[in-house]
């Protein structure tokens, strides 16, 4: 996508960034709609997962992994701003691998939650919200991986790193959504 070549010189915010914002807006409406559906269904029949320490252990570990991963992604942007190619590569790689660990943790959680998708309406809500979030994490991993490939090709410099920035923003977004889902599904 050669968006930069058609951007009006006077435009202050980059075209890619506006496109990402609008995409994240429409994604947010999607997650909010799912959460509203969850709230509406919960209103009709009260269900929740047991709030025991062991029950919350895996999701808590997963939350930590994703949070550390987000910090790694953030340090990738700091590295590229200083033209630190090794730092950029390592940060992207770490963020990406932790993302994959998170997805593996989610798969483990799916198998040990004691729920299935046809377990009343709650099973459906749980797997839909978690499943779509996991798909977004995988999309973020692909985004980071593409940036890693371009880093290896030497595409990014301290003045030219928009794709890194956008990928990291997407990663922050995925992390933020996770916190909302964690609170909604495990803590309420």
């Amino acid at each position, binding site marked *: 996508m050669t*968006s930069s070549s058609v951007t009006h010189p006077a435009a202050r915010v980059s075209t890619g960034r*506006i*496109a990402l914002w609008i995409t994240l807006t*429409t994604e947010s409406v999607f997650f909010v709609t799912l959460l509203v*559906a969850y709230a509406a269904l919960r209103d009709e029949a009260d269900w929740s997962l047991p709030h025991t320490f062991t029950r919350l252990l895996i999701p808590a570990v997963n939350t930590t992994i994703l949070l550390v991963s987000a910090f790694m992604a953030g340090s990738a942007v700091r590295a590229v701003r200083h033209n630190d190619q090794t730092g950029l590569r390592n940060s992207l790689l770490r963020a990406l691998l932790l993302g994959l660990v998170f997805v593996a943790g989610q798969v483990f959680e799916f198998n040990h939650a004691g729920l299935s*998708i046809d377990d009343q*309406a709650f*099973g459906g809500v749980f797997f839909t919200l978690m499943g779509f979030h996991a798909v977004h994490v995988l999309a973020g991993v692909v985004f980071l991986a593409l940036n890693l490939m371009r880093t290896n090709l030497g595409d990014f410099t301290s003045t030219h790193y928009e794709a890194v920035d956008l990928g990291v923003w997407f990663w922050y977004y995925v992390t933020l959504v996770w916190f909302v889902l964690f609170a909604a599904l495990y803590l309420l």
Partner: protein
Amino acid sequence: MTAQAQSISRKQTLGSSGLLSWIMTVDHKRIGILYLVSAFIFFIIGGLEALLMRIQLAKPDNTFLGADTYNQVFTMHGTTMIFLVVMPLAAGFGNYLVPLLIGARDMAFPKLNALSYWTYLFGGIFMYSSFVYGGAPNDGWFSYAPLTEKMYSPTHGMDFWVMGILLLGLATTIGSINFIVTIIQLRAPGMSLTKLPLFVWTTFVTSFLAVFSLPSLTTAILLLLLDRQLGAHFYNTAQGGSALLWQHLFWFFGHPEVYILILPAMGIVSMVIPVFSSKPLFGYAAIVFSTIAIGFLGFTVWAHHMFATGMPTVSLLFFSADSFLIGVPTGVKIFAWLGTMWRGKLRFMSPMLFAIGFVALFLIGGLDGIHLAVVPVDWQITDSYYVVAHIHYVLFGGAIFGIFSGIYFWFPKMTGRILNEALGKWHFWIMFIGMNLVFMPMHVLGLEGMPRRIYTYGPGRGWEIWNYVETIGAFLIATSILIFIVNFFITILKAPQNDPDPWDGFTLEWTTSSPPPDYNFAEIPSVRSRRPLWDNKHPDLADWKKEEA
């Protein structure tokens, strides 16, 4: 720089003709034409489905179509006209015109633009392939749960519907993001938001509506898919689900969708009427603000589709009052169009006739909507033919007339040829009369209690005569469309006149050659008023002098 050079050389090597050049194209004008042609073919298919229904209903106890076939035909008619015809026709005009109107060389993301077109085409063909694979969807275009659950709709029709709508929603979302970014980023120097041509404004607001409302539909149909395929219970009341949840999710999309369908047509009409009245648009700011107001209010009225579901009184009152409120900005627009024509030097050519037809018919449809917003009235006539009359006055009398106005108006720009004016007038008058013959009696039938979506009815209820008249009207509409198709082929086979500005237009698209070159503008224009071409033609009377004074 290198990217630009590459894209120019690619255009040259592919040439400007041949099938491959259309498949590979990332040019907004060609993608726009692809959208328009594909959507018009779906329009003919959807129209044939309407004719089948009208033949079936022409007389009581008719056996032309069986009940199940009739269900499939009305479901596909509605789904086709909304998702495969009006939305992509608007997207076609948007693709073709937005860059030209704002003085840009292409959309912000040309490849994404091609992606959204091909996704749309695939989604449409995919949905229609259901006829071959065990039966088309048959639960109506709004597919209420729990009828759509596997238990009650065991064929694969609904699965095709869900997957098809997912693809079409994806195409629209990608396209909308592209429009928003293009309009924010690529406007020519001087073209502030207050100088944006009205069609660009309506495309802008429509795109935001799509971005904010489509996720709700996506959620609704994904949950349905999980119910049907993986045994989840979202809409299954017996297992803690909620059938009403579908209606809320669907109409939270469905009502903004109504404005997604009508706003682009309003934009077209707001471009056509000033040119054929030889006057600037009356009340530009009023139209822009009412478009934005409609955009916001459109998200707050969804439950007026659900008055009959037993809502609390306070909700009924809110959604009823709110639905009256949304009539206000629409009324403002009607007066602005009339004000534009008032004391103008009117030229009643085909684009103008369709634009005036739009105003008249949309007004009737809008007033029907106000009737339906009155809760006790709605309880009487909901799910009757009165509702069918209402949606067709706004979507056929409104959106389709507006789109034909745009087709006659911009056809010379797209092809270099003006459509035959005499045939255009025949098209307009036969379609106008046919349209009223079909849909006006539906008001009577609705008040007489004829429910929508029934495949036949018994004699002796006083419904025969009106149904018969409606069927005649449907064939008149078909005749008018046939005249348009003949006109299209007669015109396209003639040598082009290549007149850059056949209507004495006001806006930037008429400054380019007809059809415009690949790059649109050799030099990016600079804009000082809402009618840049008028300013060029009449430097002494230029709008910017008045606007700055």
